[in-house]
């Protein structure tokens, strides 16, 4: 069933002689990724730095990152999943017909060259961005690349990693996993965590109108989500915590201004490779931190009657084996 084979960014810096960026534009979205972690770094294993590494960029259009690439592969829009699946077949020497290869917008010799380079790498690493994970196919596109990386380990060392954006989204993922067992898309309505993306993920919940109050922190869905989702946020009581008065604040019942993290609020943030780093705020904000406000709201909720009636035990919805 494949899996997830990954590493910390220091491993890439030290060892990766072959790097693929897929559906991402680090030059503009993660500007120091090249210089700090990947292609530009020299290491004891790759003493000549950039010269010792090969970088392949796969995207549907030319971006500013192309300049940094040794090889640019322009895949047809919406054909990433097909291309990765073809590569999975090709590394196993399965024959894929020419006309089918052509659907991806790439020629056989180009892909054969790519497979040969992947297999002859000492340490390969694939980074994938939202151009892959947010286009048609979504989580299956990410799964495809992760599976390709896992399968490459039959030939050489290979890892894959998402290029997470949005500040500390990785921290939320990591914390939810240790406290609830699941990374996102969770409900506690039976008194314990249950998981089902699609059922409990926010866009779906809002579009279907499945919640009757919303607490929004560190995000501005009022600016980014589809209109039916925003409409539901307007219908229900919404509470927003943010350093700015945002689009979501304007449609909310309650907005509370808080100190921006890392600038005026201390704490921890996780890097995209799940490494926690301490924050060192420079400024003293006139506003309280998110942590403090959420803690105070929690205390106020805890003062009210507990939602589960005394002595009641909700039924679990367990898997039936």
């Amino acid at each position: 069933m494949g899996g997830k084979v990954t590493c910390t960014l220091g491993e890439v810096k030290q060892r990766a002689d072959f790097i693929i960026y897929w559906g991402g534009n680090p030059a503009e979205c993660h500007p120091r990724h090249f210089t700090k972690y990947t292609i530009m770094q020299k290491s004891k294993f790759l003493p000549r730095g950039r010269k010792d590494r090969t970088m392949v960029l796969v995207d549907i259009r030319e971006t500013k990152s192309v300049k940094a690439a040794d090889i640019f592969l322009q895949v047809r829009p919406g054909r990433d999943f097909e291309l990765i699946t073809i590569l999975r077949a090709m590394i196993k020497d399965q024959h894929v017909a020419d006309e089918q290869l052509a659907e991806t917008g790439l020629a056989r010799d180009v892909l054969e060259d790519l497979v040969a380079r992947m297999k002859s790498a000492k340490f390969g690493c694939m980074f994938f961005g939202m151009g892959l994970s947010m286009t048609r196919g979504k989580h299956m596109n990410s799964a495809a690349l992760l599976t390709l990386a896992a399968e490459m380990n039959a030939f050489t060392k290979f890892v894959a990693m998402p290029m997470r954006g949005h500040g500390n989204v990785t921290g939320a993922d990591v914390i939810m996993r240790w406290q609830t067992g699941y990374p996102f898309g969770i409900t506690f309505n039976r008194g314990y965590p249950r998981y089902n993306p699609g059922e409990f993920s926010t866009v779906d919940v809002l579009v279907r109108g499945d919640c009757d109050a919303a607490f929004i922190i560190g995000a501005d869905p009022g600016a980014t989500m589809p209109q039916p989702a925003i409409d539901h946020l307007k219908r229900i009581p919404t509470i927003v915590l943010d350093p700015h008065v945002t689009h979501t604040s304007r449609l909310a019942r309650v907005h509370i201004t808080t100190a921006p993290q890392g600038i005026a609020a201390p704490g921890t943030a996780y890097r995209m490779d799940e490494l926690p780093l301490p924050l060192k705020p420079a400024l003293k904000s006139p506003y309280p931190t998110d942590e403090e406000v959420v803690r105070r709201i929690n205390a106020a909720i805890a003062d009210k009657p507990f939602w589960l009636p005394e002595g009641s035990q909700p039924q679990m919805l367990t898997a039936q084996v």
Partner: protein
Amino acid sequence: MTLQIIDNATCTFCGCVCDDIQLHHDEVRIHKANKACVLGTAWFLNHTAEQKYPAALVDGREASLDEAIEVAATLLHEADMPLVYGMSNTTCEAQKECVAMADLLGGLLDSHTSL
């Protein structure tokens, strides 16, 4: 005026979370963010310690923090299916409190990841 310097500060704008930034600030404003990229520099320089917004808004009018917290708690407590969402641009410490909130409320919990 001499600026105060913070070494090895951490930038949380993107997933790179670079922790080698040198910040020069005067307590109100960050004037320089050495080593930060163009996105990180904008992130650091655009936030100030000024009081630009009201402490809180309740139904569109300015409110005290205490009042807003009480209203928020009441609205969330009354709901049959409250949702706790977001958690990208905040600290782990706040994220833990958010998970605790969803657990305490018996509600939904989700992050940007699900988008």
